[in-house]
């Protein structure tokens, strides 16, 4: 029988600023909570690759490459509408909104339901 889920209070809202994160331990689990474009996202701190501490990695906009009408590359750019968390073990990058690797969607983080009330942020485990 699956264990019953529990809703756990995490922190006051201002502990997870826009574009930032908070990594917390709840029981045996370590969870990363992120805020991007006003929305909260939470994932287990376990990378889909080799289980690395993904939520403790670098937060960085997705890198894109500009291609002009003639098909020529005009170099790299940041896409600031897409925020990535980079696993510090080997560099797998995941879109914060989807939890998916942009090149292999099956490589995805384990999402944790997260909600925000007047008194702060909760996750359900």
């Amino acid at each position, binding site marked *: 029988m699956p264990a*019953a*889920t*529990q809703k756990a*209070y995490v922190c006051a809202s201002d502990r997870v600023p826009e574009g930032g994160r908070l990594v917390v331990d*709840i029981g045996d689990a370590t969870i990363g909570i992120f805020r991007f474009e006003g929305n909260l996202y939470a994932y287990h701190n376990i990378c889909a690759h080799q*289980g690395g*501490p993904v939520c403790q*990695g670098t937060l960085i906009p997705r890198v894109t490459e500009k291609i002009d009408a003639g098909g020529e590359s005009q170099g790299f750019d940041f896409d600031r509408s897409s925020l990535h968390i980079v696993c510090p073990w080997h*560099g797998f990058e995941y879109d914060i909104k989807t939890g998916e690797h942009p090149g292999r969607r099956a490589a995805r983080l384990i999402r944790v339901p997260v909600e925000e009330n007047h008194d702060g942020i909760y996750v359900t485990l």
Partner: protein
Amino acid sequence: MADTKTLNGVSAAREHAVQQITTRTDSREILANARRDIERYHLDDYFIVDVDAHHVEFDSWADILDTLENPVLRYNAKEMTKHWPNAKNLAFSNHPVGLTFQDVFGRIPHQAELGEYVEKTDEHRDLTLVRRAMDSMGIKMQVVFPQPMLEMGLHPEPDIVVAMTFAYNRWFTRTILPREKRVKSLLCLPFHDPDACMKTIQEFGEIPGVVGFMITSQRHVGVHKNMYMRIYRELEERGLPLAFHAGPSWGDTMTTTMNRFVSVHSMSFVTCNMTHMTNWIINGLPERFPKLKVIWIESGLAWVPFMMQRLDHEYLMRQSDAPLLKRLPSEYIADMYFTSQPLEVTIPHMLEATFKAVRAETQLLYSSDWPHWDFDVPARIAGLPFLTEQAKRNILGETARKLFRL
């Protein structure tokens, strides 16, 4: 659903002590999730030998330069460190700028530096770091290599290569090796100079913890040249394995066409070992030195089935080009040893076929390559669904135990 806002009056969530892993983070924290694998796969029940890991000799560069035997070279190197702003940890090395791309520009901090706090004691800092890594991953013994010294094969000045190789080997076998029985090494041969290679084997071959010797693979020489035969004979007679450790080069005719580090790393870590393996087999070295054990390090495994098929195919049509062979190239390759990292796992049925081709149960040696950016934890092997329990035990350590007489 219970609301656990508080647990005995305390918030249920605790802020994790390390919010972001950096070059200053303790490696036990970086590798905390590997410790979970120890429980999950019962790795404490295994004798795990890691056949490719690294310490950072640049951190001890001044001490290594002090070990240079030739007084003029020692003077030159030390003066370089005084006068050039960044030469303190670089003088006389062949560290190419491209290698500093390995950490994906800060995304993979442990590749750039293990700058964590280590209390100052009599123990060398590198030993503390090596132990922290081994204990975090459930590894019992580690074959430890340097890092930039592996690029000496393309150094422009052979005399410096020979002098630095002796200096490093002396420093390592005096400072690191005698202090920890769990640390072993395959020492670099100064392959620019066969006489110096023979001297290296004689000077270091019987030191406890030296389990064999190594040729750094990025180099532009044919390993089948007659001048090297006495080296292979000496190793064969001593029962010491010969390893080829792959490395990257952004400076050869293929990689100079490439604009991204991922392209260079994908190709050149493999093509250097492909080149040496081709010369090794086509020139019949397995027939000339049938008892010499050969290990191919850090090229992953996916290249091996390609080499087996390609060399077999061509050899059968051109037997007279390789008259010493009595078997197919693939059969000689199947007798060689390979380290596992970086294990290419994205296409499971090809991985399984590759394990069969290389006879992984008896020939494959687990390696982590820690602290490099593409390291593999032991769970990489322990979690493979197609391996028998005995195969896992062999790959993780029992084959290394036999090969290196541990």
